[in-house]
């Protein structure tokens, strides 16, 4: 099942953000003076309400408890300033209606548009500053849900899906750190992934996404990291090119050879520039692959041209990441398929 967000218009803006923007897909918007700014909460704690409706298998208090755990997962990211506060239960709908309230809860959204959507996130944004004012998360009650500690067969895990949606609430876009296969139904099945923010969920019953992966943590740290995080980590910057031209949308994955930790990002400019930050100092293997394991529209807008006709390629050198600094700029030249 895909988890589309209601952020496609915002994603367009981020897609054309210039160099210097971190390669994690951060949601952004164009503000009054024409600048592109990443969506970000500047006032914390982020106050949220939970709908007081039960669904089969999940009572409102159980829903609130699962949501609380999911928020706690993001609040626990080291060296970041992310804080949340549960305000109370509400009868309001988890649909953005300009009420300046952040509401999370179940809502039935049948029909073809949402037939594969487990949940989605919407935002209220100050168009003058890009500041996030409120955000709603809906969980599609068309599906079967569970809050069982170990998960329940054939039921989607509330906490896992909410952890993903809270990532969007914080302003993070999707990660492409996963592999899928296309099924005869036209749907994609996850073969493996290493990011909660991957756009396709594990099958029902799985609770793996309750735990953030390094890629998610790097994204959160990139947006909400403290000064200490900046000094303790470094970044890799460079370009991806095909026949000398920048390759927008190329998926860049880096492996910390010391720990096996994977982090990824995208080339986010017409010149193919990328920056992957919040990396532990060390030696990295850098790999580039086409964005072919998910619906392109899960990452970029429909009118964005993303070339996926090239071979997965490794950068020829090990890349050194220093603490508090950046690797020298690298160029990864890929070959067409």
């Amino acid at each position, binding site marked *: 099942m895909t988890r589309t967000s209601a952020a496609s218009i915002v994603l367009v803006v981020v897609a054309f953000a210039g160099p210097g923007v971190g390669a994690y897909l951060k949601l952004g918007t164009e503000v009054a003076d024409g600048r592109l700014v990443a969506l970000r909460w500047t006032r914390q704690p982020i106050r949220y309400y939970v709908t007081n409706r039960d669904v089969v298998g999940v009572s409102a208090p159980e829903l609130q408890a699962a949501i609380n755990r999911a928020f706690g997962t993001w609040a626990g990211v080291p060296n970041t300033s992310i804080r949340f506060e549960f305000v109370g239960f509400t009868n309001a709908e988890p649909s953005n209606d300009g009420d300046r309230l952040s509401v999370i809860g179940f809502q039935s959204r049948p029909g073809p548009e949402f037939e594969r959507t487990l949940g989605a996130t919407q935002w209220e944004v100050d168009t003058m500053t890009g500041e996030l004012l409120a955000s709603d998360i809906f969980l599609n009650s068309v599906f079967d849900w569970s809050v069982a500690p170990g998960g329940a067969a054939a039921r989607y895990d509330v906490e896992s899906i909410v952890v993903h949606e809270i990532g969007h609430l914080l302003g993070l876009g999707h990660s492409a*750190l*996963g*592999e899928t296969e296309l099924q005869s139904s036209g749907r994609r099945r*996850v*073969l*493996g*992934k*290493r990011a909660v923010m991957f756009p396709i969920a*594990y*099958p029902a019953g*799985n609770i*793996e996404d309750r735990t953030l992966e390094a890629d998610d943590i790097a994204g959160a740290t990139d947006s909400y990291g403290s000064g200490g995080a900046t000094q303790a980590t470094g970044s890799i910057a460079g370009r991806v090119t095909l026949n000398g031209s920048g390759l927008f949308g190329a998926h860049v*994955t880096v*492996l*910390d*050879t*010391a*720990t*096996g930790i*994977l982090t990824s990002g995208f080339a986010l400019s017409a010149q193919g520039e990328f920056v992957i930050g919040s990396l532990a*100092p*060390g*030696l990295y*293997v850098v*790999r580039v*692959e086409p964005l072919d394991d998910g619906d392109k529209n899960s990452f970029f807008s429909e009118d964005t041209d993303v070339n996926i006709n090239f*071979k*997965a*390629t*490794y*950068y*020829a*050198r*090990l*890349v*050194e*990441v*220093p603490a508090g*600094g950046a*690797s*020298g700029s690298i160029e990864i030249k890929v070959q067409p398929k």
Partner: protein
Amino acid sequence: MIAAVGHLPKQVVLRAVAGALVVLAAAPSARAQGRPVSGPTGRESRLDLSVGASWMGPIGQGTSTANLIAPDGSMLTLFSTRNRLAPAFGVDVLLGRALTATFSVEAAGAWTRGELESRVSSDFEGADLTIVRTALSRFTIEGAGAWVFQRRERFDAFVRGSAGWMRELGGERVLVDDGLVGTVGAGVKYWLRVRPSGRVKRTGVRVEGRVVVRSGGLSFGDRSAGIAPAVAGSFILAL
């Protein structure tokens, strides 16, 4: 007789004095030597300065695997790497001081240039097998002890052990890490020229094999310790 000595030419007197000094200097050493160790008069210098080159073999650094998590909780390999410190070449400088006829202490410094190397394979999408590298510079400062266990006409055979500190820098000079290094080994010195007088008493060459034990420094994770073979050759000036 006294009058006769007083009439010896000056040059002859100076040679005689020089010879006496050499004999006197050699006497304690000769007494200290064990039976297998013997050598010609005039070899007992106190300081050896060696300058040469070294080669250190590869050190395995284990593997790293880029794993994705499959729905059933198992690992799906995106790609894997086999890592090592590639063979390295360097320059050695040693200053040795003889404490006895058979035992000397040495201060050694070395600069070595090699590579950190990662062999990438098993790519999920079939990318070509690739070897990615970065340069590595290593500076070491060591203290050593060497014992000569066999002495022939022009050969000294010795065993040696050392321990010291090292600093390693990545090729882009952005990563710096320190560690410890130690060696055990054996080798020979071959004296090309022996002079009873002059500032440089002997010149020769030195060849030795070592086993290098390394801990810390730049590495692929917690596989920082490792053992490697090494060989070194140098030119010696014995002062």
